[in-house]
């Protein structure tokens, strides 16, 4: 194992996000005989999370614990990660293309004056060259991109590169590293949780999304119920957000979130090109709409033409029966 690839882990409410495990798998795609070195940052004991990264394939994990790393700031995390990079001189670095990943990785790339490939959905080798595939023009096209100089540095889109199976027989060293962190100029005063509890929209395997056809905030209730029985998350079209049926944090589309779940159920969504940009790469798409001419049927694998207020409750019952 001559090469090392750093995987910067990320947790939410003390639990590692799936994309961290996917990033470990991505590192192994970049180089199959590499040493995958997990990096975890925080203000409290990270041994359990480090162990989890090892079960998912990391060979070694470096934990950096400092009171200034209690919550993410680009300054604090930036200093800590740069210090690890300096120690390890990695061949590659992988992180999730999440709010933190998007914020942190360009800073590091810029500091080191290196390239960065954001939002990769696939990694292949062409000889020695690592080729990343990423969506451009909101998923209307894809590009294959390579790093021509310096560290192979990429963020990966959640839900696209499958993680390895968890295996408790895997073992590896956990190292604690101490760092000095200069005073932070940016302070987080408060966090207001608006995102729905439970399943994270960008990582959800199932998304139930509503559009203008849902007609009201109340109309979203059955969608939440369906999402719950499916273990998924609720999303929305811009139309539904503009009409105040739900919060903009749920918006899927060209502006808004891009999701690629296994199953996307579009309810009362007409399928404007801007919405398709946020979901058309979903693996299976179901459309439920009373307008048989709605554009959403052109991208759907399965369609039901009908009244969503009739269809959704039936669907909830059917799924419940199936899961019972």
């Amino acid at each position: 194992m001559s090469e090392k690839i750093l995987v910067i882990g990320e947790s939410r409410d003390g639990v590692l996000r799936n994309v961290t495990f996917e990033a470990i798998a991505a590192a192994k795609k970049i180089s199959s005989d590499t040493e995958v070195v997990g990096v975890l940052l925080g203000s409290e004991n990270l041994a359990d999370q480090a162990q989890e990264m090892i079960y998912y394939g990391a060979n070694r994990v470096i934990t950096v614990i400092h009171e200034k790393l209690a919550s993410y700031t680009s300054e604090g995390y930036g200093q800590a990660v740069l210090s690890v990079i300096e120690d390890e001189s990695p061949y590659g670095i992988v992180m999730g293309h999440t709010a933190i990943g998007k914020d942190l990785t360009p800073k590091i790339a810029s500091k080191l004056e290196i390239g960065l490939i954001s939002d990769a959905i696939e990694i292949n080798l062409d000889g020695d060259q690592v080729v990343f595939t990423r969506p451009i023009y909101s998923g209307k096209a894809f590009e294959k991109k390579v790093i021509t100089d310096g560290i192979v540095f990429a963020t990966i889109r959640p839900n696209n590169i499958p993680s390895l199976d968890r295996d408790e027989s895997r073992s590896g060293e956990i190292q604690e590293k101490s760092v000095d962190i200069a005073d932070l100029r940016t302070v987080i005063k408060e966090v207001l949780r608006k995102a729905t509890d439970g399943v994270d929209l960008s990582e959800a395997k199932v998304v139930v999304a509503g559009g203008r056809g849902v007609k009201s905030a109340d109309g979203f209730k059955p969608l939440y119920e369906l999402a719950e029985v499916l273990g998924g998350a609720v999303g929305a079209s811009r139309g539904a957000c503009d009409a105040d049926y739900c919060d903009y944090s749920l918006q899927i589309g060209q502006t808004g979130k891009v999701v690629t779940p296994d199953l996307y159920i579009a309810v009362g969504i007409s399928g404007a090109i801007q919405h398709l940009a946020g979901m058309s790469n979903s693996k299976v798409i179901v459309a439920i709409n009373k307008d048989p001419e709605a554009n959403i049927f052109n991208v759907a694998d399965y369609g039901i033409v009908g009244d969503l207020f009739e269809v959704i409750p039936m669907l909830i019952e059917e799924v419940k029966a199936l899961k019972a």
Partner: protein
Amino acid sequence: MNIYVLLKKTFDTEEKIAVSNGRIEDDGAEFIINPYDEYAVEEAIKQRDEHGGEVTVITIGDEDSEKQLRTALAMGADKAVLINTEDDLEDGDQFTTTKILEAFFEDKDVDLILAGNVAIDEASGQVGPRLAERLGINYVTTITRLEIDGNTAKIDKDVEGDVEKIETTLPLLVTCQQGLNEPRYPSLPGIMKAKKKPLEELEIDDLDLDEDDLEPKTKTVDIFLPPQKEAGRVLEGEVSDQVKELVSLLRNEAKVL
């Protein structure tokens, strides 16, 4: 306040994308201001109206980019700068763009730089944070509220739906998220005035840069369109039967339940 906006022109969101010879075909395409950059222009104008100062809009592009700059001027920006790389650069990436902007800002006295949080074409979202790092100033991405009081900025930051209340200090770079404001449409008098507002055109020579300084660190080796999706199956029959069939298909054929 000295306020700067980083602006990029992008394809209109309605444009269909075609690829020829491994490149996106842009002949005849309609271009617009990147939608997230419109939030940045709007916010810059609002902050200037509240605190005084001047808004300068900058873009890196070709001579056609003047159109988007004039639109920003018509919205209310005071000055525009076009860094025209058409004759000098074959390729570039986020490193290249940052390097050019870094050189541009070298002798500028900056209080606030605003940018979109992502451009809807290449969608890397890198240039804002990259530039802030080079300039050694604070940055906050995906903001939905900005309140400046003296040297302090109070910010709401969207974090995948949650809101972080952040306090930081100027000089500052922010990238704008939907929800920050409602970008205004240029008014007719605004459009007339915009024609007379200063628009400076620079080339990389003027910034003491040459091609070698700007050599990208990444390279696009191919561009392709997603496979055409075949039209799906619209189910038929009684609604209750359709729902039963759907669940069965999702379980047995699509294997997602």
